[in-house]
């Protein structure tokens, strides 16, 4: 009996060791992959929009650059799909509007997009984890997992998400699709993704490149970044701050 208890304990120890080593062996597989060496890195990406420099021309350029690259269709109805678009001051900042506003301010056209919130409600409600927050703060969609339940559209207080009510290719010029990015299919939700795929390749988002000097993009945790510099110098607003979603698109007033 004595020796068999010894044996049992030895065996149990070995088993425990095996258990702890096996999962780390399984994950060693990911050594087969690497990130592109020049990828941009940050702890918290954020954007700032200089509303004084926003002209119709600049806004159209930014929208055009984004929607072209990502094959976003332009549908002439309420079923339109948008990643970045123009909205006037009042619906954007309706919690900050009062009866005696400066003349014309309510109708001021501004650019708006997904806010890449720090506590994103869309991520919390997604039942398949198709929407998730990356470590660098980008709220990304995995289109492969989207089942089109539209909970995220109900959860988002900014209307940043669009649903594909029909095949988007019907509204795109199929000879001029951008080869660098897939389209979406019927029954999938979509939104801006801060050009995560470009950031991972070492480039800045398409809209920021198109609207140089009006849109700023950078790491919020780095005091020397472009975004931190403009936020230090200028007064800024975020949309619906009261809701506590902590939006990361700042409007420089």
């Amino acid at each position, binding site marked *: 009996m004595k020796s068999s208890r010894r044996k049992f304990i030895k065996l149990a120890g070995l088993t425990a060791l095996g258990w702890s080593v096996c999962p780390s062996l399984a994950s060693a597989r*990911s*050594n*087969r*992959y*690497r*990130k*592109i060496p020049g*990828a941009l890195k940050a702890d918290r990406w954020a954007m700032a929009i200089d509303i004084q420099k926003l002209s119709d021309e600049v806004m159209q350029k930014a929208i055009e650059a984004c929607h072209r690259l990502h094959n976003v269709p332009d549908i002439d109805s309420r079923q339109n799909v948008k990643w970045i678009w123009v909205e006037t001051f009042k619906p954007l900042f309706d919690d900050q509007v009062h009866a005696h506003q400066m003349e014309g301010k309510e109708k001021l056209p501004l650019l708006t997009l997904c806010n890449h919130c720090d506590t994103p409600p869309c991520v919390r409600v997604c039942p398949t984890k198709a929407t*998730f927050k*990356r470590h660098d703060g980008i709220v*990304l969609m*995995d*289109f*492969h997992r989207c089942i089109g339940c539209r909970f995220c559209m109900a959860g988002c207080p900014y209307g940043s998400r669009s649903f594909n009510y029909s*095949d988007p290719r019907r509204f795109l010029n199929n000879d001029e*699709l951008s*080869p660098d990015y*897939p*389209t*979406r*299919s019927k029954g999938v939700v979509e939104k801006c993704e801060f050009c*995560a795929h470009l950031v*991972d*390749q070492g480039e800045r988002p398409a809209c920021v490149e198109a609207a140089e000097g009006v849109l700023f993009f950078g790491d919020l945790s780095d005091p020397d970044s472009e975004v931190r510099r403009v936020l230090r110098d200028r007064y800024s607003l975020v949309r619906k701050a009261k809701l506590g979603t902590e939006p990361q698109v700042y409007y420089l007033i």
Partner: protein
Amino acid sequence: MYDAKKIIPGLIIFALFFTFPFWFNLGTAAYTTPELELPDPEEHEHCIESTEYMRAEHMAMLDEWRDIYVRDGYQEYWSELNQEYFLTSLTKTCMDCHSDKEKFCDRCHEATAVDPYCWDCHIEP
């Protein structure tokens, strides 16, 4: 036998139904490997991994690639066979070498009755 008149025809009908797939397909052509248009062997000797591995595992590989690309941000895959990195991309990697989808992917998928839905979104070369 008790009720043999009913049981024996019943058994025969059952046996006929049960073997239906076998005699229905009698005389039709057996499965043959479709003729695939491979990339020019002068330019590319190998696929990303060995041919046997690709034949059996390419769907699992693509599945892993899209997860790792979209969710973890890894954009390059190390191929032991080629000793080189490949972009983890369906269109930019696979379709760069196998540029004629109809004569490669589709031919094989038709023969094996598979219909991947990837091309609803991914743009065909």
